[in-house]
């Protein structure tokens, strides 16, 4: 029982970071119908950038998030303008998969050139510290990472619900044609939406680098998990993605602790197959667009 609860705690903390990672992915899909296969690579890129800032300039990864996210937001906007905007609308959904995959390979290639291919990890002074609460370990880094994810997701939520920009995003998600008729600049929303998606990936990457050793090829494993999460949550549904992420994080950790660590990544696939059989639109997806 002790191990079970310990696993749940670990899984919940990991799930919070998954939620942050998946939020951008599902947002980009909602706004543009683009599945950004490069999301995993962006996370790894974020991890490397914060690693560099930490080792070279001694900037704590939680601080570097504040510096990196605006920067990577701009990079995201640029990537959208250069690589996704030019795709013809009727082929965009199809081609964007391949284009973003190519982007993922490109980022992996770039990182291999710059950093070589061995594992790195961002080791801060509090990396090994943990609190003991009622006999359970609470790793400080993981708790901070979870906290940061909650803060960013809350900001994202406020941005989407309380601002004019957020309304245009939600309108676009629900129906781009009507949104355009109502005067929403869909192109602009798409570019900004992609920028936000990349920014969340960067933030998630900074904490990912503290809890997990990573190398340029780490993105394959990440993206397959994240894609399972957003399918489970319902493509385009932010709330769905968050709940799915927390659930998957815990399911994986419990599976690893109670059954076998070797097979724990299968929890993702088992859940994915079950969803496809029972509810192909995902837990919170609808058959129509727009459940953000």
């Amino acid at each position, binding site marked *: 029982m002790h191990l079970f609860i310990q696993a749940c705690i670990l899984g919940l903390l990991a799930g919070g970071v998954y939620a942050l990672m998946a939020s951008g992915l599902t947002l980009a899909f909602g706004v543009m119908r683009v599945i950004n296969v490069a999301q995993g690579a962006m996370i790894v890129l974020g991890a490397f950038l914060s690693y560099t800032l930490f080792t070279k300039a001694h900037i704590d990864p939680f601080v570097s998030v504040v510096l990196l996210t605006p920067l990577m937001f701009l990079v995201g906007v640029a990537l959208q303008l250069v690589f996704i905007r030019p795709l013809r609308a009727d082929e965009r959904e199809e081609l964007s998969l391949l284009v973003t995959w190519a982007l993922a390979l490109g980022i992996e290639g770039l990182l291999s050139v710059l950093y070589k291919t061995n594992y790195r990890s961002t*080791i801060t002074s509090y990396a090994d510290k943990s609190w003991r609460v009622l006999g359970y*370990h609470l790793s400080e880094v993981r708790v901070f990472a979870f906290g940061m994810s909650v803060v960013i997701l809350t900001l994202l939520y406020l941005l989407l619900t309380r601002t004019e920009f957020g309304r245009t995003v939600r309108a676009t998600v629900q129906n781009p044609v009507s949104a355009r008729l109502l005067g929403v600049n869909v192109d602009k929303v798409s570019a900004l939406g992609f920028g936000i998606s990349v920014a969340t990936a960067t933030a998630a990457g900074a904490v990912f680098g503290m809890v997990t050793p990573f190398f340029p090829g780490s993105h394959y494993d990440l993206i397959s998990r994240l894609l399972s999460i957003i399918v489970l949550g319902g493509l385009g549904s932010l709330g769905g993605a968050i709940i799915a992420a927390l659930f998957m994080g815990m399911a994986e950790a419990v599976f690893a602790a109670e059954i076998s*660590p*070797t097979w724990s*990544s299968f929890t993702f696939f088992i859940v994915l197959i079950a969803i496809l059989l029972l509810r192909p639109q995902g837990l919170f997806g609808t058959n129509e667009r727009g459940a953000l």
Partner: protein
Amino acid sequence: MQALEGAPAPLLGKSVPATRGQKEGQNVRRLGVLISLGVLLAVSATLAACGGSSSSSSTSGSSGSATSGKPLNIGISLSLSGDFSDPGHAAQKGYQLWAKTVNANGGIDGRKVKLKIVDDASSPNQVVTNYQNLITRDKVDLVFGPFSTLLTGPAASVAHRYGYAFVEPAGGGPAVFQEHLNNVFFVQPAPTLNCGDPFVAYIKSLPPSQRPKTAAYPSLDDPFSSPIADRMQKAFEAMGIKTVYKTIYPSETADLTPVVEKYVAKKPDMVVAGTQSEDAYSQVKAMVQAGFSPKFVFLANGANSPTEFPSKVGAKNTEGIFSCGDWFPTSKAGGNPQFVAAYKAQYGGTPFDIDSTSAEAYAVGQLIQAVAKKTGKVDNKTIISSLHSGTWSSVEGNISWNADGSPQGSDMLLEWVGGKLQPVYPPNVALTKPTSPKPPWGG
């Protein structure tokens, strides 16, 4: 560098008449298509050409003393890009250092050594293509083994087909020896999976009262990690040491806290972990966090890195941890002091910065040199038959092989003693005595 200027020209040239053809067609779309194709080809050419500099420079052009006859061409495919590129570069250093040293001393049999090193991008298809090309197109005199291990098998069978000796530094897994290829020689003291044997022998040498009673075996799912622990587990069980915990965790497992918690609960006297690198650090850190210090800790890999291990787990937490190694910087094995000195002169750093892969690659060259010295010949037939008889000396120690190319010796047991990594067992290679039980964490 010639390639850099040469290669793109013909490919770009192709696109020129095509662009000109656009005038008659008056078709803008077609122009776009052709330009992009041209760009595409140019990019692939530039891409390939960029690599040109690295491969052309890799041909060892050292100014040897007077050499006669045609050069001895040796072909090697290494993973200079892709997932295995870091050890690939380490192997390249070892090979080049050997070639330089040999040429400075007049070459082999008066023939200057010329290395042709090509890149396989860590891909098995490319490694097959590369050895095919080296042997049947460029007709090199000899081939040396690639890095990584996983690419050694496919490469060895190509070499076998053409009767080339395949002296290789990295492919020590069972799959390679299963093929029963008579041309393969793995240049390390022992097959990779036997790396725990010296530790088993050491435990056996202890009086029964000092031996551990219980053991845990947490291992990484990797060809060269979990099988090591499996082999040790069998030996320890035969000695009556009870297995209280065993698990295999996947390579993506970053945080081993849950695994460590599980075995901490069983309080084993000994932890034998088939580890690679990050997972070894993670296990140590989790044990420190849990305040659990078993009497014996053996980590197959990770703990044998003289500089990285203390930096990752804290120098004071290393004391008494065992690991294994095939080569050690201060070893006195055949030509090792000279190798270390030459390495320092060429690449700088301290002896402890030398990757053992460089030593392994260097040893491959040493063996060829030794065969040439003994027989006066450097053809593949002679190399194969010579290496199959007797024991041969190199920086990796004295090695002999069975018919499948599996080395018959033993690796060494390393231990952190007094803040330093030292070979401690077997006694003939030990620089100091092993100590046990392990002190508590933090010294």
